[in-house]
């Protein structure tokens, strides 16, 4: 029996993820500083109010560009499959750490998939509305109505994004083994089977075939 851990994320995927994560923290903190007066002190982390205003759009833009890298890598694994609907109906059991009646799922569970598409939508709204309210370069090309709408949408999309990431981070803390998967890349076979059984079968079927071929050769 093969006890070797399974590679879930290679070095490029991990680096890409953490680049987006760091840029999200920076763009998020600088954005929150401008969103609510109670958080304006966060602007000191960026060298004061004007620097926060200058840096925030560039941080956001960089976050979007690197996020596209994640989209290109992972979108296929985030297409919904048949079991996902049942999994979502049994979300209450998942939340209680119960496994009875929760169907096996692929590399990503439907919660992760929903998160993925929500993040993509938020990022797109943030990008387009952010361009409209980027006073230094682009706002002069838009009418006041568009700028007001964009300001509102930008805050809304950022709010949804922050909430989604809070859920995402907590899921990483809650599901032991997923954090180290994104740090070192590997998960144990038991972890893969427990949380992503269809993916586990897929990955280990390849293993079995490989060993079969090598035995023959």
């Amino acid at each position, binding site marked *: 029996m093969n006890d070797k851990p399974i590679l879930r994320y290679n070095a490029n995927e991990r680096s890409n993820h953490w680049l987006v994560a760091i840029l999200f923290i920076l763009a998020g903190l600088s954005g929150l500083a*401008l*969103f609510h007066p109670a958080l304006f002190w966060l602007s000191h982390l960026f060298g004061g109010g004007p620097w926060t205003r200058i840096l925030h759009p560039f941080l956001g833009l960089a976050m979007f560009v690197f996020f596209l890298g994640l989209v290109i890598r992972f979108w296929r694994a985030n297409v919904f499959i048949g079991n996902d609907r049942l999994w979502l109906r049994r979300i209450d059991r998942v939340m209680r*750490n119960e496994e009875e009646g929760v169907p096996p799922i692929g590399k990503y569970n439907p919660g992760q998939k929903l998160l993925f598409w929500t993040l993509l939508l938020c990022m797109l709204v943030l990008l387009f509305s952010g361009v409209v309210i980027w006073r230094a370069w682009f706002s002069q090309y838009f009418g006041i109505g568009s700028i007001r709408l964009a*300001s509102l949408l930008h805050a*809304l999309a950022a709010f949804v994004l922050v909430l989604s990431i809070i859920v995402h981070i907590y899921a990483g803390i809650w599901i032991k*083994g997923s954090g180290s998967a994104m740090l070192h890349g590997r998960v144990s076979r038991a*972890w893969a089977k427990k949380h992503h059984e269809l993916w586990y079968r897929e990955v280990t079927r390849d293993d079995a075939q490989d060993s079969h071929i090598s035995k023959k050769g």
Partner: protein
Amino acid sequence: MASQDIIARSATTTPPPSIRQQEEVAKLIDTTKCIGCKACQVACSEWNELRDEVGHSYGTYDNPHDLSAETWTLMRFTEHENADGNLEWLIRKDGCMHCADPGCLKACPSPGAIIKHANGIVDFNQDHCIGCGYCITGCPFNIPRISQKDHKAYKCTLCSDRVAVGLEPACVKTCPTGAIVFGSKEDMKEHAADRIVDLKSRGFANAGLYDPDGVGGTHVMYVLHHADQPKLYAGLPDQPVISPMVALWKGVSKPLALLAMGAAVLAGFFHYVRVGPQRVEEDEHPGAPDTSVHVVDPAVHVYDPGKPGPGETRP
């Protein structure tokens, strides 16, 4: 003006100093007396030491073409053909209206960058301005401008420096026809009422005062010949209000969003405390997806002498 007189401050959630009452001031601009000489523009530029760049003519008397960081007031000229087929030249001195409920102040994210004085003057403090332009987004009158030199927002101060020492604003002092007057808001309303009676007697049935309620009233008011159609005067808004989008963005959504984010973090924490983490049990060793059948003989007990324990009692 003293710090006791700052009665509203941008991006501040606690009450401002409010122990002192001050009389509200107002500037009254009588468009029916204005001859469009632009002396007010020059006086503004002189007093405030502002020298805008010489621009281009776009075929109208508006000069410069628009407000800017260095042009805080501007005469806007409109040629209006009235119902009788006569031409009317409507001239409006544009600039900050010093709203009682300022949209710029509501939108500003930087504490203290925009303040409102007890006498009604709304002032920008460029020292605290971060240059985001939210004041432009919030303003119902399209007044603030960001300087391309320093990326700070500028607008008419109602000569707060002059008013603080008992002088009238520079534009008021210079106006040769008395079209611009300055005093307490009550006196200015009275003065306007006299003017409106006079205008009505001269055939301007719709003459009236422009002191829009939607922004809580303004500390710059107009006497208009056609108060029923403020739009005629180079697009003066008929019913200016802080846009509902700005009100939502910088109003109720701010505390609610913050609350929701905090609640999400707390929900996660308590889920961890109550339900706990999901760990993969160490003995959950999955076999390889093996199709061969692995038969376990219940009679055979596995006992590892290296690991003493209730091995014998295990089924």
